[in-house]
């Protein structure tokens, strides 16, 4: 693991137009300091991959409001009226993905699998334009793997190797996103020396993490 970087440095690494996975569930477990820095640097044209768009002023909701976002792939945008307004006005394109399918598509993208075969979405608008496979007499939708240029994670502890832990429901999409991006940046609450996190407590192995965001100086 290299030295910790500032949230501003992390935001500067992410170019306009990049696809970015954000951990978080209604803003819980979001990389909030990097989000603030992305807003501050005036990022534009981002593709967000995230469970939801939180609410105005919270989590990735700040990016929506600040006009940083061109595309959203999420399971739910109902808690953020701004996302809905911008979708209707055509400013933001939204792809809605069932929550479990979103998690599995990201996992497939990070695990080298060719796709996900799921019952979820069969017989609904989600299946439109997608291949349906009959397996053992049952229909399964073939959903494509998802990857991104960046994954921005919120962790509880990180050690100097980048090993991560998460806290309660703040884990959500963070662990699975750690596998699925070309560059993984984690924003931990605490940074501890190597050896402080026992091997069985590590939930994301440090080899997956490219940069740690350091605490404000």
């Amino acid at each position, binding site marked *: 693991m290299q030295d910790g970087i500032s949230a501003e440095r992390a935001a500067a690494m992410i170019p306009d137009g990049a696809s970015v996975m954000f951990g978080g*569930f209604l803003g*819980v477990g979001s990389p909030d300091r990097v989000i603030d820095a992305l807003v501050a640097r005036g990022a534009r044209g981002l593709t967000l991959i995230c469970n939801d768009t939180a609410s105005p002023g919270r989590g990735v909701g700040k990016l929506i409001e600040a006009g940083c976002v061109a595309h959203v792939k999420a399971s739910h945008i*109902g808690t953020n009226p701004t996302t809905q307004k911008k979708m209707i006005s055509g400013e933001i394109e939204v792809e809605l993905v*069932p*929550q479990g399918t979103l998690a599995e598509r990201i996992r497939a993208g990070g695990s080298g699998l060719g796709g996900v075969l799921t019952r979820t979405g069969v017989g609904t608008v989600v299946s439109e334009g997608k291949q349906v496979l009959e397996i053992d007499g049952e229909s399964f939708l073939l959903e494509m793997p998802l990857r991104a240029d960046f994954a921005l994670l919120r962790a509880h502890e990180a050690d100097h190797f980048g090993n991560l832990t998460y806290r309660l*429901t703040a884990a*959500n999409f963070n662990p699975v996103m750690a596998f699925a991006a070309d560059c993984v940046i984690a924003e931990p609450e605490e940074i501890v020396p190597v050896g402080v996190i026992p091997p069985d407590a590590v939930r994301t192995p440090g080899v997956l993490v490219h940069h740690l965001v350091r605490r404000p100086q």
Partner: protein
Amino acid sequence: MEAKEVIARRVALELRDRTLVNLGIGLPTLVACYVPAEISVAFQSENGIIGFGEPPPDGLEDPYLTDAGGGYISALPGAAAFDSATSFALIRGGHLDMTVLGGLQVDSSGRLANWMVPGKLVPGMGGAMDLVAGAKRVIVAMQHTAKGQPKIVEALTLPPTAARRISLIVTELAVIEPTDEGLVLRERAPGVSVETVVASTGAKLLLDGDTPTMPIVSPERVAA
């Protein structure tokens, strides 16, 4: 008794001992208040926890401990936390004994629509499609009508949540079970006639002998 309380109390009678249950946001969440005292149920929240309880006392909230609606919760002793992939492995892998969801429409084939109203409301499906496709039993807890219009209809006019037939509909007027033959009226609410139920329903209801009155878990049987 308010409509929502009637519904929540009746749904609570569907809970079975030592099962894993997911309650949707809104009305279904109320079911947790009426768990019969003699049974023990583990509640799952799809954002990643099994074993949560009441909101914590004021000032003791943990910002990293919330339910799928974003509200603060408590963890009960023996709780387990996990990530979204694990959460949906539980939901889609048949490990969830029951889910209780709200509904916009249910049709005569038992299909549910509960995630969007084209041109009006496009919140997204969240975990609803996975829950309906994956849970062993799917209970729809909803008011019988909306703005005077029946929500139980011959054929869905809203986009379905899943192809699958749901297990049971519980409203403030009736309990209705979708079957191969169609929608069977199983129970009517106290003081509600079969005719009232039929008149408030937009799909054909099959009667199966006498229609008994809905049993509702009484206050004294509710867990403290």
